[in-house]
Structures are given as structure tokens and as C-alpha cells.
């Protein structure tokens, strides 16, 4: 589903002395099927932004369009429930929301609420369990007996069981160990490709954005600060530093390399192996002082 923000402003506690503008005049367009990374330091408006995507908040000004759903002030869409079945949100630390007696029941809770027939839910669970990397024998266990990483997978399975078209991920790997982080992100990426999802990833990790996203939106103080392909945005060191962000480690290194050797290796989201080969060409090439 296409997602469009048109001059969106969101004010918390409007018309009170505590009024606070979390988003101001924000416009962007995400074509259906994209994998978009939203980056910004704490308090930049990222979380407020994603709360618009399934109608948890309605813009104070401007308009949000998700597929055929329009969200504007004073006019709630008649089919909010349908919107929420199309837009699945994996919140931060989603395992905190587990509550059922068994893993199977917890995963089924979402689709049950959206009126999915029981046998269809069963079928979906059979499909999702291996996709999120959970062994089937866990279905009858209490979710609270599982490890942190497994609990997170159960929570994610619950979102996927609704079969959303848009998947919104709010720092889905926070607190996991490196292997857990990679496994979860690879899983989302495969689902994104296989099911043709539109994926919106909120992350602090430039490395993940480089690896998975085809489009990047940098937020600062509630406004869009930069936008573009990762390889265009992530080479702008000064601009990123201004909003307390840093370029990916690979770009940092390529910059230092150029400063020392006087020869650039352009950043093209290449693999570390390819970078090693470029370096090899330069280092084994001509001596520095000829």
C-alpha cells in the first residue's frame, strides 16, 4: 500500500498549557513495496510518525493516506478496524504485550479480533511458526517460560498472523544479542520480499538501514531533515553530524582512507569484501612518494 503524508502536523495535548508539537509540516511519499528506514535521535518525532500509520493518532493538521484510507482531523475513517488489519505494528519490546496462557493462543488473539475463521487461523499459525524461527512444540507452552528472543518472536508472529500489507517495525531488535538481531532482521527482509509488503523500519542502526532499506527518511525536531537512497544520504557526514547522527562505520572508514591515501573509494553499499579488493588495488599500487 502506498503511504503519503501531506503537510502533517501533530500536537500533543492541544489547547492545553502542555501543548507540544511532535511533528510539523511533514510531507513524504512511500511507494507500495518499499522498505523504508526512518532514522532520528530520541525525540525527533519517529514514534509519533508511525502512530499515524494505523490511525492510533489522527493528524492535527494535514492528511495521511495509507492505501485507500484517509486520515484527517475531524473525520475518522469509518473503517478504522480494517486499516488496523492492513497495517501491522511491531512496537518496541513487543514481548511486554504477551498475555495469553499459551503461545498458540497469543498468536491467535490478533486474527480472532479481526474475525478470521478458526481453521484459517490454524493454517496461518502453521505457516508463521517456522517463518519466525520458532519450534512447533512451543505452541502449547506458556509464552512466559520462553527466552527473551523467543518471546519477541511470538509477539511478532501475532502481528504477522493478521496478514498485514504494511509492516511497521519500531526498533525491533533492541536488546537482542547480535545473532538474534541479524536473525530477526533477515526474517523481516525475507517476509518483505516474499509477501510484497511495504515495510517501515524505525531504527538507530545505520548499518541496518544500509543493509535492508531502499529509502531513508531522516527526522529531526519533528520535521523531515533528509530523504533519499541510503547511498546518497549516508555519505553526508556534516549534515548528519549536525543532527547528532553519524555515518555508517563503513563510510567513516572510507573517508579516513581517502584522507590518508589521497584516493577515494566511493560508497555504493558494496560488501566489505569488495572494499577490501578496492583497498588492495590502491595499497599494492604505486608507492606514495614517487
Amino acid at each position, binding site marked *: 500500500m502506498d503511504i503519503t503524508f501531506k503537510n502533517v502536523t501533530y500536537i500533543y495535548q492541544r489547547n492545553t498549557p502542555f501543548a507540544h508539537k511532535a511533528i510539523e509540516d511533514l510531507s513524504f511519499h512511500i511507494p507500495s513495496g518499499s522498505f523504508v528506514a526512518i532514522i532520528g535521535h530520541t525525540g525527533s518525532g519517529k514514534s509519533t510518525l508511525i502512530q499515524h500509520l494505523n490511525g492510533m493518532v489522527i493528524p492535527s493538521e494535514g492528511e495521511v493516506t495509507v492505501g485507500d484510507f484517509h486520515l484527517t482531523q475531524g473525520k475518522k475513517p469509518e473503517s478504522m478496524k480494517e486499516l488496523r488489519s492492513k497495517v501491522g505494528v511491531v512496537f518496541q519490546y513487543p514481548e511486554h504485550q504477551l498475555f495469553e496462557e499459551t503461545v498458540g493462543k497469543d498468536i491467535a488473539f490478533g486474527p480472532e479480533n479481526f474475525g478470521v475463521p478458526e481453521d484459517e487461523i490454524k493454517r496461518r499459525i502453521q505457516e508463521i511458526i517456522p517463518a519466525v524461527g520458532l519450534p512447533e512444540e512451543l505452541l502449547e507452552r506458556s509464552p512466559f517460560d520462553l527466552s527473551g528472543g523467543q518471546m519477541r518472536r511470538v509477539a511478532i508472529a501475532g502481528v504477522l498472523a493478521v496478514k498485514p500489507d504494511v509492516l511497521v517495525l519500531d526498533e525491533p531488535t533492541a536488546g537482542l544479542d547480535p545473532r538474534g538481531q541479524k536473525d530477526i532482521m533477515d526474517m523481516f527482509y525475507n517476509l518483505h520480499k516474499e509477501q510484497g509488503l511495504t515495510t517501515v523500519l524505525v531504527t538507530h542502526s545505520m548499518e541496518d538501514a544500509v543493509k535492508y532499506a531502499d529509502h531513508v527518511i531522516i527526522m529531526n525536531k519533528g520535521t523531515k531533515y533528509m530523504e533519499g537512497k541510503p547511498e546518497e544520504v549516508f555519505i553526508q557526514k556534516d549534515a548528519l553530524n549536525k543532527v547528532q547522527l553519524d555515518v555508517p562505520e563503513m563510510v*567513516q572508514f572510507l573517508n579516513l582512507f581517502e584522507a590518508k591515501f589521497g584516493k577515494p573509494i566511493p560508497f555504493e553499499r558494496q560488501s*566489505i569484501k569488495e572494499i*577490501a579488493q578496492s*583497498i588492495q588495488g590502491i*595499497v599494492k599500487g604505486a608507492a606514495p612518494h614517487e
Partner: protein
Amino acid sequence: MRKKIIEFRNVSFRYGDEQPWVLRNVSFDVYEKEWLAIIGHNGSGKSTIAKLMNGLLFPQEGEIIIDGQQVNDESIWSIRRDVGMVFQNPDNQFVGTTVQDDVAFGMENRGIPREEMIKRINETLSAVGMQEYHMTEPHRLSGGQKQRVAIASVLAISPKVLILDEATAMLDPKGRTEIMSTVSEVQDKNDLSLITITHDLHEVVQAERVIVMNNGEIWDEAVPREIFAKKDELRKIGLDVPFVTILADELNAAGINIEREPLNQEELLEGLWTLHSRT
């Protein structure tokens, strides 16, 4: 020979009689004023070690000695004065309504006189760069600022050991950098033993010594450079090696041998420059 501040002697621990062992026969020492990093995947036992160090848990087998005292029911109160801990979630460790109240809390519990408290609040908040926030309500702080206040609260009771148990895991990159630089300054000034528990290998570089945990056992104990050299094995036990290490590896495969395992980008560039100048 430096003085041992913490000794683990053949320590085994499990959460219940029917439960699997979380730690198996773990022995190691922590010395005065050193920076020790403990790394390992989720569930490897590293946080259990932290909780054993200040008597939040007791081992079923083996013994733990902190500054000459064995950890038991009688000694835990004096041990908790010696061993301060900062946990992962910045929101779970605030009790005061202002930053300075929060720092005062631990001291009040120990009956420190008011004059001394005021002095220490000033000292420790400046040490972590949070002095100007002394009247701020904790919920108005960023995650990194909250963790810095948590560190100040621990420092205020002048511990001998400071443990950071994944204290940066929930922070954004800026918050992480803030904490790591605060921590290294504080350690320099206060003659502390510092134990950082993490799965972020970037945070290990600054430590003097590293213990790698795997499935409840000590997998390796060495200086950071030696640990990083074992990149393939580290990956096998669920840890990730830094970019510089992977690049050095790929360079090696491309026929460029950096003599010394680089710990950071500068060292790698130096190594490359040396090779370049020779050709």
C-alpha cells in the same frame, strides 16, 4: 601484583532445583582498578554473574569473595556498599522526584550526614556532566542522561566496584557514546574497578581484559586484541565482530596482511600505510 577485589571460586548457579544450570564451575578474578568486560550471547550467564557479585543471588556451589569477604546473608549489606550496579532499563531505577533526590536516595539509606550528601551530590553529578539538571524531574531526561544520573547515584556511595549490566543496550547511539566516555572518565578519577557487561563488541575495545561467556561457562579470558583475533569462533557463539575486524580479515584474503590485529580504524589505516610505504 595487583590486589584481587572479586574472586569467583568454582561457582555454579541455577534458578531452581529442577532448572538447568545457568553457570557451571565458573572461576575468575577481578583486580583493583581494572576495567573488565564480560561478553556473551543472551542467556550465556553474564547477567547472573553480575547479580551474584552483590548478593542479589547466591550460588548453590562454590564461593564468591568481594574484597576479602565471602558473599553471604550477613555480609551483603557491606558488600552492596562496595559493589554498585547500573542496569539496562533507565526507567526502572529511579525513585526520586528530582535528579538530586535520586542521587541522595542511596546515601540516605546509608545514613550519610546531610552536609556530606550535598557535597557528594555536587561531585558526582559534575563527574557525569549532569550538574545543571540537579532539579530536573527524571522523566524529562533522555535515556542517556538517565543512565548518567544512575551512575552518579552509584558513585555517591563510593563503591570499589562499578558494574554496568548492559547499561547502554536501550540507548540511541549518542546516548551510548555519552555513557562510555562518562564511564571511562569516572573510572580514571575514582580508582574504581569497572565491570561492563555487554554484547556490543565495540564497547569491549576500551577494556583491559575480556571474559567471554558461552552457555554458562567461561569460553575465553584475554585482552581485547586476542579476543578479536578469534573472529570465526566468536561468530559461532552468537557474537558479532566489529567492522574493522571483518575488513582486516577480507584484506588478508585479498593478500594484504596487516601484522597486528587492528582494534580500531586508525590502527588498520596505520597498518595499511606501513605496507603501502614498503611497496
